[in-house]
């Protein structure tokens, strides 16, 4: 298998070494002059497609652009034993407790709580130049859906009644070739599209065939708005974080990724808050995944001692070459990183992401500013 297009970086070992050492400085010097926790500016708009339930478009200044369209369709639910009449189900652990919970309520008030299913949300990603079953789109789709499916809230909102439910199709299109690792772009666009998603208001009652209000003005947001205009909760976002030495850098560009020692994708969500709660919001960690760093595929530099052109001596055998390469510890000679990350570094990354007024919070607030 040839290396994926995103992992190919056209930088020489010398350039990589320069980039690496400038990112190692305290504070790190990034090629585009950003602070370590600063995101790239972006242009965003929502509700761009009248034919979709929700949509959003985000452009990064490097020209990468993504569009997300969300469609909801009514689907017949699969019949489940434990959703049928009282006591007619096999007494299994899960079923029992559920019945205890709404034991006092009359049967009609069957709530949507806990009835959501994983399969009600379908997410697909299209990246130009990649097939649907290439590792990159699959990895990205798995990562993004992991965050969305982590909580019960979204799934439960898709429940209409015992017989029907909404099926949510999230189609993510990357319009430009992936110049940088597209994860943050796709995640933020999906976030905005979900925020703008609306589903028609239900007019029928209980287990009737669902009938909806024709008036689009009356439709409900998938992530409901409070009268104050605030949301009860918001979709998750996934951030890309990389580490060089002990420096932690957010939203890395393609060049920065080429020298990363570790790359992590972290999904977070604001925890649900009550109606009158205006106090500080807490962030919940939903998932962490390590991303294969393209730096491991970069060519290593040749030190002067091994280069005949600069007065060194070329190794005579491959064993010799290995021995010489292992023994060099020269600054300015690029060696692709080996091994993994220390646990403490991962802990620090998590802390940086989650801390109040930390990066995730800042990104969320920034997205709040987008008119939905």
């Amino acid at each position, binding site marked *: 298998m040839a290396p994926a297009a995103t992992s190919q970086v056209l930088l020489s070992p010398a350039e990589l070494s320069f980039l690496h050492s400038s990112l190692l400085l305290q504070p790190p010097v990034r090629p585009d002059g950003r602070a370590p926790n600063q995101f790239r500016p972006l242009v965003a708009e929502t509700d*761009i*497609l*009248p*034919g*979709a339930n929700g*949509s959003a478009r985000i*452009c990064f*200044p*490097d*020209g*990468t*652009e993504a*569009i997300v*369209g*969300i*469609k909801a*369709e009514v689907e017949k639910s699969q019949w489940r034993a434990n959703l049928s009449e009282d006591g007619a189900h096999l007494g299994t652990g899960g079923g029992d407790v559920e019945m205890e919970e709404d034991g006092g309520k009359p049967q009609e008030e069957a709530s949507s709580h806990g009835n959501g299913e994983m399969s009600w949300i379908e997410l*697909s990603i*299209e990246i*130009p130049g990649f*097939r*649907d079953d290439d590792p990159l789109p699959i990895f990205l789709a798995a990562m993004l859906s992991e965050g969305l499916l982590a909580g019960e809230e979204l799934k439960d909102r898709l429940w209409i009644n015992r017989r029907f439910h909404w099926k949510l*199709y999230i*189609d993510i*299109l990357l*319009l*430009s*070739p992936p*110049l940088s690792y597209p994860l943050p772009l796709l995640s933020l666009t999906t976030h905005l599209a979900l925020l703008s998603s609306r589903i028609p208001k239900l007019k029928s009652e209980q287990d009737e065939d669902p009938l909806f209000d024709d008036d689009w003005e009356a439709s409900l947001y998938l992530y409901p708005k409070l009268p104050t205009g605030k949301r009860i909760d918001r979709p998750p976002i996934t951030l890309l974080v990389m580490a060089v030495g002990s420096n932690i850098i957010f939203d890395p560009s393609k060049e920065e990724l080429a020298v990363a020692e570790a790359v992590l994708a972290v999904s977070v969500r604001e925890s649900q808050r009550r109606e009158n709660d205006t106090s500080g919001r807490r962030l919940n960690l939903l998932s962490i995944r390590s991303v294969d760093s393209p730096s491991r595929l970069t060519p290593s530099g040749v030190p002067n001692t091994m280069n005949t052109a600069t007065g060194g001596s070329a190794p005579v055998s491959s064993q010799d070459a290995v021995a010489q390469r292992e023994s060099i510890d020269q600054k300015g000679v690029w060696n692709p990183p080996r091994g993994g990350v220390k646990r403490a570094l991962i802990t620090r990354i998590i802390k940086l992401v989650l801390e109040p007024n930390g990066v995730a919070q800042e990104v969320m607030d920034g997205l709040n500013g987008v008119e939905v």
Partner: protein
Amino acid sequence: MPLDTSTYALSLLRLDGRRWNELRRIHAQISTQAAADGSAYLEMGNTKVICTVSGPSEGRRGQGQGGEGGKARIEVEVNLAGFAGVERKKRARGDRRIAELQHTLTQAYTSTLLTHLYPHSTILITLHILSLDGSLLAATLNAATLALIDAGIPMSNYLVACTAGSTSFEESDNADPLLDLNGQEEQELPFVTVGILGDGDKVSVLVMESRVQMSRLETMLVVAVDGCKRVREILDGVVREHGRNMVEGAVG
């Protein structure tokens, strides 16, 4: 769902309130994406298309690397988004309808662009259809033309396209031609897509897939060509506006 065309005869207004020779709202933008060599966004009513052009560049390896005979090769990729239609539908790659659309576009631009200026290179036109409501081929052609202009690829003139239809299949005499059909009308009525080069009467693309009275074709063609000329004026306006902005931006 049959289209109720009976009201047309009475009021001479179509379902969406247009008259027979009225175009839908056309909105276009060029240079929408910084990463592409050329890009454009075009709306024809509710049909929305984004087009990006990359090239002329060295072609992908192993595919002949550019065209034969000292000419550039044109490649077209059409991507119909899952959320474009009324119902969510994911089309497999290599869908016949998409493949045909790609072929038509490739043919059209291979003859329109001055490909001999770029030997051994490839021009890739990527089209994303975000919303679909009739006149798909016409919208893609118009969007691609704008994106190619933005990419600065020389062509002899604007290649603009438009659809025209006829109000009924039947052999009655009182059938009117219609300009720029929307999705609903397209499903029900015979229509033809015409692409012309510049403001002359040179037809360079003509696609018709429905059955229609021979005698009506002439009128439909005339109406479509007329529509194309109006589309050309709109697109020309967009290009000139963009050019003016660029010049002003460069000066001050």
